[in-house]
């Protein structure tokens, strides 16, 4: 490790880190917001569930490079627009979370849902006040996986010249220089773990009622 170089580049690295955080977190939030209604739909309809989950699964197998290159053509965005990365990662996040949300709603005990209905909750009230809050542990378990994979995926955006930690990999590779590569990997993992921890904390805060934190 060349710490002198790290010191020299610290401004740049912090800048890359900032972009990395933005590019990982914004799609996570957008993805969750989109996945919630879709997951609810899949949960509601026996016929839609396999369809949505199937399409989501297929979306995953689309290599991200292809998605990154093709998206501007579809979206009409500029090629260097970070929006492309946000869009691509949002797609992956949605694909991942649709099933999670559906399963989370599925995990709410039937008795609980019935009780809500019997007390005169209307459909949306039951969803917002009972089913979603009770499904939080399952959703946040899925969200953790999504957050962590997003952090790792963002680095692919280096191929499009969007600045983020992945830029350190190409840079290091060109110069056959370990320092930026290792720094990039370590920062990625640390960032992922921090996000992961934040989601765990958020989950704990939202679910003071669970006996214990859901493992893994």
């Amino acid at each position, binding site marked *: 490790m060349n710490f002198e170089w790290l010191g020299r580049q610290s401004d740049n690295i912090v800048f890359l880190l900032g972009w990395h955080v933005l590019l990982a977190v914004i799609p996570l939030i957008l993805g969750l917001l989109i996945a919630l209604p879709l997951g609810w739909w899949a949960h509601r309809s026996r016929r839609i569930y396999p369809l949505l989950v199937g399409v989501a699964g297929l979306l995953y197998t689309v290599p991200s490079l292809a998605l990154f290159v093709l998206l501007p053509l579809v979206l009409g965005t500029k090629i260097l627009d970070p929006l492309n990365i946000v869009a691509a990662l949002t797609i992956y996040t949605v694909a991942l979370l649709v099933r999670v949300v559906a399963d989370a709603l599925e995990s709410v*005990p039937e*008795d*609980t849902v*019935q*009780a*809500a*209905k*019997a*007390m*005169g*909750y*209307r459909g949306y*009230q039951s969803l917002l006040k*009972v089913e979603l*809050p*009770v499904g*939080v542990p399952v959703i946040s378990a899925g969200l953790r996986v999504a957050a962590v994979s997003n952090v790792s995926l963002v680095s692919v955006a280096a191929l499009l010249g969007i600045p983020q930690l992945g830029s350190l990999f190409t840079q290091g590779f060109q110069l056959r220089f370990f320092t930026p590569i290792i720094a990039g990997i370590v920062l990625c993992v640390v960032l992922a773990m921090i996000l992961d921890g934040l989601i765990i904390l958020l989950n704990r805060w939202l*679910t*003071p*009622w*669970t*006996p214990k934190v859901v493992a893994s």
Partner: protein
Amino acid sequence: MIKFENVTKAYPDGTVAVDGLNLEAPTGKLTILVGPSGCGKTTSLRMINRLIEPTSGTIYLDDQPTSGMDAALLRRRIGYVIQHAGLFPHKTIVDNVATMPVLLGESRQKARIKALELIERVGLPASFAKRYPWQLSGGQQQRVGVARALASDPAFMLMDEPFSAVDPVVRGQLQDEFLRLQREIGKTIIMVTHDIDEALKLGDQVAVMRVGGKLAQMASPSELLTSPADEFVADFVGRDRGYRSLGFTKTAGAVAIGEEAVIQLGASADEARAKASGAWVLVVDGSRKPLGWAQPELVRGEVTREHLNLSGIPAVVSGTMRQLLDAALSSPSRRGVVVDENGELIGTVTATDVVKAIEAEPHLETAR
């Protein structure tokens, strides 16, 4: 009043769960639906608050057909105690109980205060208020379920096997508490159970259903015991019908209570022998509360706790024939101890006297 008029429910798969049900649950009374598993009890109950829609027929709530009402508003008028409590896992006990009032627009503050009262009313310590459902045992959760249904002070209550999740001992306690509560609040309740004992113990009237969703008999508990409508009901009500029906006959002075000589703990063997009638003598404490029976012939020196036989169960004089007969039968001396409301000795009765009194009384039923 809740009224079923020719109500039928056929599920999409063809199962006819309820078949032409006619039933009336009078205002302020506890009506029990009982029957073997799968006979359509839950289905009937859930048709009332329209969690299930009837295939045909009409259900009336205080003479208004429910079919025309807004389902959510209808449900808010009816307390519903679900089979396994069905508490909201994400809310504290007090917030669970406060759910309905808040939904109906009360302030959270006020609703919580009311909820706290109810929690104590169903016999839970106030300290449970801040707990979450998983921190309660099954029986405690059941009570919260009842409190939650009561919170909006609904005129109607539907209860689906509210005491099923607990062991027999706790179950008995819950039933007793519930009876006490209902005596205070006098709601129009329909309760489902598949336990005939529970039905007989709690119900003002009991509807026995048979598989296929038909009503087999609707009657008061004692009538069910003394004149079951058919073999099915007779079988379902089960054995010991004669004995259990005595539980509905008050003692009410029908049996002559005999004087009983007593001794206190510490009495000498001689005194015990002198006071004994037959082989046994009754031992009481300072305030004439019965402690047990002793056999003077086995006593050396003075009478101690060691000498007491505890098998006899004292009957309260205002109780039922069943208790009186059991007092006599359970007593080693065959003389049943009778006490007043404070537990102080009045005298003893023999099984023969009790049975004679029973036989003197006319049989409750007259042929249909």
